[in-house]
């Protein structure tokens, strides 16, 4: 049986030895061949030496999730082989270095093809051929592993060569030749395999013609581009994984005229962004859990002063420093309720890598329209995942700066001489007119204390009441003004027997799961929340109509489940959760849904509600 263009490739190795570069090379080569990619990266909070790995799933058609079974495992040292060999399916292949490890030490399934490559001898050969130094070529192990994989998959070497030329440019162009030489050598090694072996290995990659142009991009990059498109021109940050990638990307593109300021801490990051935002610039900051904690005070100030600001929280395993480089959807409740006292904020989370671009773009419109902080919950998973996606659809993008002060209003304020009534509720829009410093008639005051129309401090109960109600009524505006399709979506058969509920980046795996479940006779759909707080109450009709609900979240407490109950009273006792720091794989989802349908999940009592629940806790992934 030949399996064409459906393969899950994995490479692993100690951090700092080029695992990422191999995965990029492999992915790009496949992309060059018109194939579709989904790549997932796992690594430790460590710079060099700890185990990391990258899985690249390749397919004929767009894919948005990873799977656990591995078809080719490419390794060049012992630890990866030891840790992952058991994941290789029967009929799959292991590429390994026989000078580093003996197969007997591995927990290999029978029927796995093993391809020994003496990496060092290949490198020595290349060094000889090219006259380059052995030492400078040691990272070439990765290219060799990729090339051997490609050869096994019967992919033409030309794709690798083209990719190498694309990757190594400028000062690095001299690396193309040795890498090509190494590639050739690896192909030779594979060609030398006995024919039976080749025949046994069913996985083939074939170039796909007429594939439209696509981006091969990760979440952090898509997010950055969305921000630039939106006109964000002031970004603050303090280094933190996995948020830093976004700021690094922006920093590397001064040509857009964006000021990227590395701050002394996250308090400064949010406050500097707020200070910037008061001048009218579209400002934002990006951080992760520990830094997010330090921003709660500033966010409250933004809420009180009705400052449009967007905070991108790249969620990672918590609490505290937790699992700094692992995945979790753990910050939802904090985003919704962080900060003392009450102020309105909008919390959203992108569905896909493509949606990273779109939500990042929209978020600035929302911030301006509702004049209050917007929190976007990204996460480690898609931030570092690589996907081939159609180019961003720029057709319907519109900049909405919200309720800016009109020239008439500025003139009136000037004539009046008391300052601009920045916080006076507008009879129609509720949200007030906003001038920028520098506009004549613009001066007004801002304070985190309760204040009157002009921004002067007041403790008058009636003014307090008016202002607090004005601010809080933005929740109503958000629910009314954000189109329903931007709040949530029901995907799949609306009359399905089972409705999976998820939010944020769990979209992709459920999207991929539906057809497979269908094949298995399970008619499921899924309700995806993109807007999380205020709760999209319009979705209640779907929840009420659904035949059976299953909550799917990457956290312990089903945080979205709690928000659903808070707003609707609906309790969802069937839950699929994961909190090992690894994202949910496609097969885990399939398995758990099957278990649920087959009533194989034992009931337990939820201590927090006293209700009987059935909970599947996923644990796969190293």
């Amino acid at each position: 049986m030949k399996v064409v263009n459906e393969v899950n490739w994995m490479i692993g190795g100690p951090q700092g030895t080029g695992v990422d570069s191999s995965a990029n090379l492999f992915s790009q080569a496949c992309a060059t061949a018109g194939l579709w990619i989904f790549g997932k990266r796992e690594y430790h909070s460590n710079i060099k030496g700890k185990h990391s790995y990258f899985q690249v799933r390749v397919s004929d058609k767009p894919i948005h999730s990873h799977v656990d079974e591995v078809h080719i495992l490419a390794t060049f040292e012992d630890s990866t082989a030891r840790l992952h060999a058991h994941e290789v399916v029967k009929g799959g292949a292991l590429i390994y270095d026989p000078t580093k490890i003996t197969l007997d030490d591995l927990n290999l399934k029978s029927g796995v093809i093993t391809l020994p490559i003496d990496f060092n001898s290949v490198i020595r050969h290349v060094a000889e051929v090219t006259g380059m130094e052995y030492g400078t070529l040691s990272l070439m192990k990765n290219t060799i592993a990729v090339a051997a994989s490609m050869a096994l998959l019967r992919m033409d070497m030309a794709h690798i060569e083209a990719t190498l030329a694309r990757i190594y440019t400028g000062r690095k162009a001299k690396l193309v030749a040795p890498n090509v030489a190494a590639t050739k050598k690896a192909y030779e090694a594979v060609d030398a395999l006995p024919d039976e072996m080749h025949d046994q290995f069913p996985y083939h990659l074939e170039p796909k013609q007429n594939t439209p142009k696509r981006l091969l991009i990760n979440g952090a990059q898509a997010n950055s581009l969305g921000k630039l498109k939106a006109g964000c021109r002031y970004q603050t940050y303090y280094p933190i994984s996995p948020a830093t990638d976004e700021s690094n990307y922006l920093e590397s593109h001064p040509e857009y005229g964006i000021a990227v300021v590395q701050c002394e801490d996250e308090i400064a990051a949010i406050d500097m962004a707020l200070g910037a935002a008061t001048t009218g610039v579209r400002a934002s900051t990006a951080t992760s859990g520990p830094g997010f904690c330090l921003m709660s005070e500033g966010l409250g100030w933004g809420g009180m002063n009705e400052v449009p600001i967007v905070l991108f929280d790249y969620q990672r395993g918590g609490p505290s420093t937790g699992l700094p480089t692992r995945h979790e959807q753990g910050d939802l409740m904090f985003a919704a309720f962080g900060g003392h006292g009450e102020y309105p904020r909008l919390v959203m989370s992108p569905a896909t890598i493509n949606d990273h671009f779109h939500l990042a773009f929209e978020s600035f419109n929302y911030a301006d329209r509702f004049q209050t902080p917007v929190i976007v919950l990204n996460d480690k998973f898609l931030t570092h995942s690589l996907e081939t996606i159609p180019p961003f659809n720029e057709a319907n993008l519109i900049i909405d700066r919200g309720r800016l002060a009109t020239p008439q209003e500025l003139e009136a304020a000037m004539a009046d001489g008391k300052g601009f009534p920045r916080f006076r509720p507008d009879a129609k829009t509720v949200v007030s007119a906003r001038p920028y410093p520098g506009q004549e008639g613009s001066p007004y005051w801002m304070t985190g204390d309760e204040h009157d129309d002009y921004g002067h401090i007041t403790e008058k109960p009636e003014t307090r009441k008016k202002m607090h109600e004005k601010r809080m009524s933005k929740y109503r505006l958000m629910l009314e003004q954000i189109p329903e399709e931007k709040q949530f979506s029901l995907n799949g058969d609306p009359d399905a027997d089972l409705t999976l509920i998820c939010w944020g980046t769990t979209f992709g795996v459920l999207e991929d799961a539906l057809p497979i479940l269908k094949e298995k006779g399970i008619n499921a759909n899924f309700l995806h929340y993109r807007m999380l707080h205020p709760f999209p109450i319009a979705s209640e009709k779907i929840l009420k109509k659904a035949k059976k609900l299953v909550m799917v979240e990457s956290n312990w407490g089903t945080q979205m489940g709690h928000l659903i109950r808070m707003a609707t009273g609906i309790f969802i006792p069937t839950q699929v959760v994961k909190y090992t720091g690894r994202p949910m794989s496609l097969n885990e989802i399939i398995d758990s849904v099957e278990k649920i349908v087959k009533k194989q999940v034992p009931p337990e009592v939820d201590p927090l509600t006293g209700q009987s629940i059935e909970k599947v806790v996923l644990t796969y992934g190293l």
Partner: protein
Amino acid sequence: MVSKLQTPLTVSAYKSEVHNDWCPGCGDFGILQAVQQSCAELALPPGETMVFAGIGCSGKVFNYMATHGVHTLHGRVLPFAVGAKLANPDLEVVAVGGDGDGYGIGAGHFVHAGRRNVDMAYIVMTNEVYGLTKGQASPTLGRGQQTKSLPLPNTNDAIQPLALALSSGYTWIGRSYAFDGKHLKEMIKKAIEHKGMALLDVLQPCPTFNDLHTAEWFNKKVKGEGTTMLPRIFNANEAGHDGAVKDPTNHDEVADKQKKAFELAHYHGDRIPVGVFYEIKLPTYVERMQAQAPMLIKYSPARVPYEDASHLPTTDLSKSYEEFMF
């Protein structure tokens, strides 16, 4: 570039209508007035001037100015102000706040602001107490001293703000006194006019909580050199201290001026020096930003165009898309 008014306004044009609720005799009155006078004399356009303030009695300055006034968070006046200035360098940005605000909870930002040399003035009202929370020791109160509200004498050593500023990289460092209106005003003007990060520490009597260092105490004559009685506060510049570096590339001169400023900041004895302690001309943060992102020479970040008249986004990402296109 910050623009100036063609026709200067009167001082009262910088006064808001808000009722002032400082205690009678508070040194903050002197500082507020000097700020307003400086604005008038420097012909700052109120609509293009932003006064950022910390939280404390001192912080209320924001509300008494008829410019943009921003009451930030306790200890965070610098990040807010820096944010605004970098987003729109055409605005005149002035930061003010208390000593608890700036040197206490804000000490981290204080230090790092020195590293950036943003072109703005930071005026700190040093009264040795946390005024608005009823008189706890602020970081400028000496160890063992016990102002009115302290149940026990202060256990912490005092900070030396001017020395700290020097070690942090401030490019203009000065001190003045709240009730010496003339000197104070001149110093504020200098701090604002200085191209870079200026710290002006202002000694500020708090008659309500600081019963040790009152206006009377500051006005007292004390022993000078020898036995002659001299005013406690003396103008170090008049007494010969020249803190201004003439040639910033001359390391010896810089080292010498820094050393002298350091000694003056640690001045020991009963007398208190005021004046310009240190001054040097170095590239501002905006200049550094512009060097890296030339578009920011033409536009401030707040004014980079990104939409057209029908609100379609105009940022062309195609170059960036290329990086990822397959």
